[in-house]
């Protein structure tokens, strides 16, 4: 396989490795704080000729959405990119996370008790109001458990079955929430209407100082602060993804992705490792769900959790480069931006240049554009925009059975063809001469063999 024959770069010295480990968080903090300062202090003070295009092409709300999708994409990257398990129902975890926020952070539709735990709203509000940060953990753990439950019966099977089961699972979760207003006569999650007015993200001690609002609702001014909150979450996901990949578990995932049989021969417990990939991915999905429900939309309803969202996240992972967290983050930003604001803005720009009417029509083609993008990526750049070195080799190597059926001969033949194509007249003459030198031996040996028979 190409991965094993590729020359291994020698491991960098410990001091350089630790330095490179700490280089990215600094850069990341600089970027996020820079974005915050840009939107909070710099843009309002600039003339509209400069600030206008910036807020038109990348409004704060879209930036927050991009950050939220980055959490989702990083989560799916653990499942698809690291462990190589195709999950087509990732939206299920997003939905469960959102509904956890709805259950624990919203005014009631059938609750008869009030419960406040550092909530972002006044104590007089009815219903359960738990702080955003605790809900994130609860939702993450819930989703991880759900991931284990759904993964357990299917992970013993082949990969393509898993894709189908996860797809079905995504559909069923949506159906559950759609029917949730009447489950054995009880209203569990509001049915088609979902749960609305979920608490904003509370700022706790920072809000008490009076510098920032006590709760980050969906106003333009509050949205700016969300860059920091969501940026922190994305940073945490990046950190976990990077560290876990270096560790024993991450290496086991990569081994499974590249060759399941060989990995199990080397003593990697297949089911447990795959289940852990599923659980970690689901944990991220839950965080993304809470971030979306509390930070972006402020409400959850089943219509938002369709198959299209699962494919959108998958596309972010594939477009960015499976297995490479930076690529995946870039992919998430690019596609989330295209999906929410970019296509419309491109339409506006094209309209102003050519006088067309694409502003309204271009966003309607987003499914076709995204689908085409996925197919073209698979055909021409399977490893993604910013590929990981290992993935690149993997995605361009035929699968095991293919290799076997082609046999080593065809690989040798390919090498020979390449050599022949490279060869010029001089080497040809050399080959001919050496052949002539060998041929008398051949001539002698041939009759000998005939005699013997």
């Amino acid at each position, binding site marked *: 396989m190409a991965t094993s024959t590729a020359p291994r770069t020698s491991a960098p010295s410990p001091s350089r490795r630790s330095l490179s480990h700490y280089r990215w968080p600094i850069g990341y903090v600089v970027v996020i704080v820079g974005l915050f300062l840009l939107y909070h202090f710099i843009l309002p003070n600039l003339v509209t000729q400069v600030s206008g295009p910036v807020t038109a092409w990348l409004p704060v709300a879209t930036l927050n959405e991009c950050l939220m999708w980055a959490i989702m994409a990083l989560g799916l990257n653990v499942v698809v990119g690291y462990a190589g398990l195709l999950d087509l129902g990732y939206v299920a975890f997003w939905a469960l996370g959102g509904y956890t926020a709805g259950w624990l952070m919203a005014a009631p539709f059938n609750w008869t008790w009030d419960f406040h735990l550092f909530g972002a709203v006044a104590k007089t509000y009815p219903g359960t109001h738990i702080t955003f940060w605790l809900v994130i953990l609860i939702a993450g753990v819930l989703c991880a458990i759900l991931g284990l439950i759904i993964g*357990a019966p299917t992970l013993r099977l082949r*990969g393509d079955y898993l894709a189908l089961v996860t*797809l079905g699972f995504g*559909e069923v979760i949506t159906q559950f929430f759609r029917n949730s207003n009447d489950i054995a006569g009880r209203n569990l999650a509001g049915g088609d209407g979902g749960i609305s007015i979920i608490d904003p993200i509370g700022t706790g001690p920072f809000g008490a100082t009076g510098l920032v609002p006590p709760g980050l609702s969906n106003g333009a001014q509050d949205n700016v602060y969300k860059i920091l909150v969501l940026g922190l979450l994305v940073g945490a996901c990046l950190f976990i993804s990077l560290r876990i990949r270096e560790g024993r578990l991450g290496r086991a995932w990569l081994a499974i992705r590249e060759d399941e049989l060989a990995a199990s021969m080397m003593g990697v417990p297949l089911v447990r490792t795959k289940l852990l990939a599923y659980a970690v991915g689901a944990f991220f999905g839950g965080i993304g769900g809470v971030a979306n429900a509390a930070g972006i939309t402020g409400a959850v309803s089943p219509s938002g959790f369709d198959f299209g969202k699962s494919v959108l996240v998958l596309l972010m992972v594939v477009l960015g480069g499976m297995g490479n967290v930076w690529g995946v983050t870039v992919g998430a930003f690019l596609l989330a931006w295209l999906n929410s604001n970019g296509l419309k803005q491109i339409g506006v720009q094209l309209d102003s240049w050519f006088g067309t009417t694409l502003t309204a029509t271009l966003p309607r083609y987003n499914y*076709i554009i995204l689908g085409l993008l996925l197919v073209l990526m698979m*055909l021409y750049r399977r490893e993604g925009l910013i590929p990981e070195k290992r993935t690149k080799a993997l995605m361009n190597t035929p699968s095991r059975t*293919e290799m076997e059926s082609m046999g080593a001969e065809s690989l040798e033949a390919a090498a020979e063809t390449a050599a022949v194509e490279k060869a010029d007249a001089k080497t040809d003459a050399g080959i001919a001469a050496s052949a002539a030198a060998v041929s008398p031996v051949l001539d002698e040996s041939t009759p000998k063999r005939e005699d013997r028979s």
Partner: protein
Amino acid sequence: MATLVVGGTKRKAKVRLGPVVERALGFVVLGLVAIWLIANIVSDPNRFLGSALVGLQNGLLYALVALGYTMVYGIIELINFAHGDLFMLSTIVAAGLMVSVMGVGQLGVGTILPLIVALIVCMAFGGFINVSAEFLAYRRLRSAPKLAPLMTAVGLSFIFRGIAQQDYVNGSAQKNWAVVWGGPVVEGVFVYKLLMVIVVTVPLLLAMTYIVSKTKVGKAMRAVAQDQDGARLMGINVNGTISFVFALGGALAGAAGVLYFLVQTQTYYDTGTQLGLIAFTAAVLGGIGNLTGAVVGGLAIGIIQSINEGGAYGLGSNWSQSVVFLILIVLMVFKPEGIFGRPTTEKV
């Protein structure tokens, strides 16, 4: 579940409990299904009959779509996610052709000719789209890792859905067509609907079985499914055979699209995903790669689903996706190779 996993992986125990427990649980599940069916028959036989007839009608349609899945999987081991959406597109083509172009309204004996025309056009349409997809995308990915063609299929399915969502095609809402059924009604089932489905579906299924088991092309298909390189060495045109399989699958999806439109008299862009999942479950239930299995699986799922929706003891149509999904999960756990399939181990 926990006991299962523990029993299956514990290596030290001499007697492996896993398979035994698994078997017993499998029979318990089968028994529960049987009890549920009998309870439905006993409590309200008429309703059961009506639901069973609806189930037969839907099940035949599922079988048509499931055949497309199972044949493609059988020959190149690809779950063609776009297959359900191809079926959805052909329902839209059929609706446009029959209602807008040929002006079909009240269905009767006079609409047999438009039905035949629509069947031919939609089968050609389905076959053409499927073969083009194979030619443009899957063929180039044949030597790529498995994830690549699978994702390509997902992308194609997305494109098909996007096309159907355009306002000038079908729009993103459910679209009802002014097609009216007449004739006798038995237990809420239009007899002519059921007859039409049977008259169209059964010959198609028989023709498919004939093609695969008796003709030279069918022999080539089976050979390619078994060993592509071996088939190539025997002088079989592998690419042509695979294209032919895609054409057959697409044509079946096209025919199913016409029938589905006439039965439901509505079109919706999401039909493909929902019905595709059901049909694939049917294919897995029967044993993927097995033609008879796909038909039996389709019928079984159609009947279970319609009894769940219309029977005396059922969860109702709100939960039918979940019921089908439950069947899929139970199947994955207890009998992943399906009813007619043989257990296979992964090739090394």
